[in-house]
């Protein structure tokens, strides 16, 4: 029966939005910087998935080329972001995102 289930692009879009929502929700409710960072990655990849889906649907390679860019940027972002977070947790293992609120107006 399962094989009969036709996987249309809509499914991918639903999956993408679900992942995005989970990521956003996690970003808002969690305070561990590492987890928040993972949530951001999740959102990023949800968007990437959506791009690929639309690229396939519309038969336009533009979407796929955007994905390549996103991957590169995400890699760079991971380098910087993780470095900051590791450095932070190294100094204060139990720090939360709310503890690093020095940049206030």
């Amino acid at each position, binding site marked *: 029966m399962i094989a009969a289930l036709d996987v249309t692009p809509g499914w991918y879009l639903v999956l993408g939005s679900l992942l995005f929502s989970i990521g*956003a929700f996690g*970003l*808002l409710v969690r*305070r561990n910087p590492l987890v*928040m960072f993972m949530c951001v990655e999740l959102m990023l990849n949800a968007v990437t998935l959506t791009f690929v889906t639309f690229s396939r649907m519309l038969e336009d390679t533009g979407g796929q080329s955007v994905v390549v860019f996103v991957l590169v940027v995400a890699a760079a972002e991971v380098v910087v972001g993780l470095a900051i977070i590791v450095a932070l947790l190294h100094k204060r293992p139990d720090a939360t*995102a*709310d503890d*690093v*609120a*020095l*940049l*206030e*107006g």
Partner: protein
Amino acid sequence: MLDAVWLIPALPLAGFLILLAFGRRLGEPGAGWLATVMCAGSFVATLVVFGGLLGEPSEDRHFVQILFQWIPVGDLRVDVGFLADPLSITMALFVTGVGALIHLYAIGYMHGDPGFPRFFVYMNLFIFSMLMLVLGNNLVLTFLGWEGVGACSYFLISFWFGDEANASAGKKAFITNRVGDWGFMLAIFLAFAAAGTVDYLALNEGAGGVAAITMTAIGALLFVGAVGKSAQIPLYIWLPDAMAGPTPVSALIHAATMVTAGVYLMTRVNPILAAGYEWVPDVIAWVGAITALIAATIAIAQNDIKKVLAYSTISQLGYMFLAVGIGAYVAAIFHMITHAFFKALLFLGAGSVIHGVGGDQDMRHMGGLRKYLPITYATFIVGWLSIAGVPPFSGFWSKDEILTAAWASGGTQGKLLWAIGLVTALITAYYMSRQVYLVFFGERREDDAEPAPEPEAESVPVAAAAADAGGHGHGHAGEPHESPWIMTLPLVVLAVLATIGGGLNLPFGDDLHVLEHWLEPVVGENELPIDLSGATQAALIVVAVVVALCGIAAATAVYLRRRVKAREPEVLAHAYYYDEGVTRFVGGPGTRIFEGVAWFDAHVIDGAVNGVAHVISGFGRRLRHVQSGFVRTYALGVATGVVVVLGYFLTRIRF
């Protein structure tokens, strides 16, 4: 030969720069001689250019030499360029000529003054500024010279700045002049805005093409500037106080240069005046006439030898403006030239007297000086007869020409102006005779040096006299003595000029109107035509002579024969209390008005500006709490924003 124009102002400028750098080393009398030679060289250069202009046919007698572009901004183009035409060269001739004589005289007069080199630094700068004013081919360059003479007059009037009265006299001259300069500046702006040029030739040529109302405004504003510089009502108050400077300065400022600038300017822009409405020239004529009369009456009751001459200068300038107003430009320039001769002569003569008696300027302490100062006496008599209007001395011819022109300008107004001019001539003859009698005739009155209850207004000249004495290192004691040749030589030269100067423009026949034909290319079109019969002109001349002689006779009866008791009303000695009135007004209500303005500025204008800044900074202070530093708050903000934007688009989509 015309290419030498640039040399005319360049020589005094060079003199100024050299003296500025090495003046102290040159010392006395080297600095004075250098300045004199530079000024005389400038005169020679002017003669060369003059010769060049004579070589041209009458209608081609204008030559423009552009040295470099000075201010090129957008459409505005101001050059440093010189315009040599009959008018500017005539002016330059007597500015440099009389100026050189005054320089020479000053070498003797300033002898022993610790500021000797500094004095000649200013003098050369003054001549340079005046030449820029006269020779500049556009309004802006003239304005440069205009401000230059203003600044130099400040330096020179308060030359003995150790005395506070002298310093404040300088400030008074400068500030009063600034009031007029305001009009000049607005006129320049307006000329550029309306005509797109500040060049004289272009402006005068295009005068007819611009709306009459604009030309009226430019003419009127330029006149405001001229009123300040040429000491006409209501801005004449600086000139009597300017007597605080050394006497050669008084001669330079009041005879040859600065005060004539206003008359020159009005003559220079005569097409603008002609293109505007009729009322501007009328106002000029009336201001001139009233100034002439009022200043002459004030001169009757002055006791300071230089103040009498100061008020007479104001009065004579009034004549010139009267002439300009009725369109008798040639007569105005003619009177300016003869006035430069005889007034420089009178001032230098007065300086020689002051020098001779050891610094006292009060005529009540003089008397009988003709025995002691024979050359000064003889030359002063020439100056006196000239200004009083006795033929054949030069002042008679030029004054008579103005009066004739006033009569010929027609209508009740012309007759009225003529009558005022005639009354002024009478008073002029009277007060000048009074001065001559008080100073040179009668008995020596040194001893009646009563502890004179000097009115407040005269504190300036008294202080100047004291400074004069100090400057010379002469004591008051001892016999009055004649001045050295270096001072009497200029007197003699000026006396000769004051005698024959009238020959420039004699009224007998067209051929003798030399000055008129010479100036024709500049003023010809707008010059008032004189169409009076020979008999009328002769009658006017006779009336003028009789009036002058009456004035002299009256003064003889009062001051020489002592038949009639002298009447010198207090109100005239105080110059109608105008000065005091101004002081009181400015000190009282004036100060309060400006305190009010200052309050308005501090509270309303600044308040508005500060208020806006305050509101914005308050808003910012509140807004900055949004930046909390909590990353999750930002994330929530972004998320909310996304939801809102998405929601907006979803409601707008039409499936």
